[in-house]
Each structure stands twice: as structure tokens, then as C-alpha cells.
């Protein structure tokens, strides 16, 4: 553990209970946002590599999603 982290940990540990809880909640929120952003970056990078990232074409994406929905449903519930 670095000196800076140790110092930070001490500061956090000395917080009042309500502040500590608020801090932990906020860290959770920021962590979620960071993880979603990372996943989004990975996904967008792959789509770009595959030539599938047409940002202006929301309608096309929606249409493709509808097609996928129909294909899956037709396969799962034939006839």
C-alpha cells in the first residue's frame, strides 16, 4: 500500500458514520459509471472495427434489434 493510500484510508476511517456511508455510496455510484463506460468503450470499439458503428443511424439500429427479436422469437416459438 502506498503512503498516499494509507493516508487516504486514515482520513476515510476518521469520518463520521453518516459521511462515511455517503462516501461509500458515492464511490459505488462512480464505480458503476466507470464500469459501464469501460464496457461501452469496448463495445463501441468492436463495432467500429466491424464497420457497424453508424452513430447517426438510430433507426437502423432499432430496425436491426426488431429483426433479431423476431428471429429469436420465431426460433423459440415456431408455428
Amino acid at each position: 500500500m502506498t503512503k498516499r493510500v494509507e493516508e487516504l484510508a486514515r482520513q476515510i476511517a476518521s469520518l463520521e458514520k453518516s459521511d462515511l456511508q455517503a462516501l461509500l455510496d458515492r464511490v459505488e455510484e462512480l464505480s458503476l459509471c466507470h464500469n459501464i463506460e469501460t464496457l461501452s468503450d469496448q463495445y463501441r470499439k468492436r463495432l467500429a472495427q466491424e464497420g457497424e458503428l453508424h452513430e447517426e443511424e438510430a433507426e437502423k439500429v432499432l430496425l436491426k434489434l426488431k429483426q433479431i427479436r423476431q428471429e429469436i422469437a420465431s426460433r423459440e416459438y415456431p408455428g
Partner: protein
Amino acid sequence: MSIQDEWIVLDTNIWIFGLRRVPNFPACAELLESLNRLRLVLPRQILQELQANLVEQELRTLFRLLNRLPVPPKVDWQKAAREIIAKYEQLGCRLGDAVVSAHLEELGVKTLVTENRDFLTELTGLPFRTINASQALAELTVKSSP
């Protein structure tokens, strides 16, 4: 009724628009950043659609972060009942949307968040409400205001 007080389903288009960061639908990305305030149900049809859109590594990452939410999502792999699907087809749903509707009814979910206009404007008589991502965010904002 607020989406903070109930189990909800996010349609596949919310997940995909959010992850793609589609410019015309910024609320989808914003809603994904608020997942920790939601109680999510993931029914079979939506799970399969996510599988069709994401590669294995992306799916693993998604489920790893979902499982870290304060309230982990309910994942349901049960197929929908034929007779309930047929009921929604008679209401005017295409087969795929009928399957999603049947899942919601069977799982007792009262809110579907979607950007699918077929759901949002063209269908009536559904036993659940449909709202888009902006409306969902508005409900979260109202709820968290002092």
C-alpha cells in the same frame, strides 16, 4: 408509481442504445449509469437478444457489474406461455413483442422501459405501462429530489 419502487424490465434497445451511446437517445446511456437505483428483471427474450448483440467478453463484463448492484437483477430463463403470447398477438403485437409482453405479465412486472414506438404508441390494453428512458430518468429525479 415510480420505477424506484418496483421491479422493471429494460428493453434491449435501452441496453444497446445506452452502450452504443446513440446520440439521439442520450437518456439511455444516462439510465445505464443509474442502474444502482433500479430493480431489474431480465427475462429470457431480453437475455437472448443481449447474447445476440454482445460477444462473450462483453456479456461477462455486463453481468459482473450487474451482480455488483445493491439489488442484483432477477434473471429468468423460463420460456413464456404459448397462450399468453397468443393473447398479445391478438392485441396487435408482433411475435417478438408478444413474447416480451408475456414475460412481463408472467413475472408480474408493471413497467417496461423501451424506445420501441410499437410499444410506446401503437398498443393499448397492455397490463403494464411503457415509458421511454427520458421518462424513467424523470421518475428517478422526482424521487431523489428533497
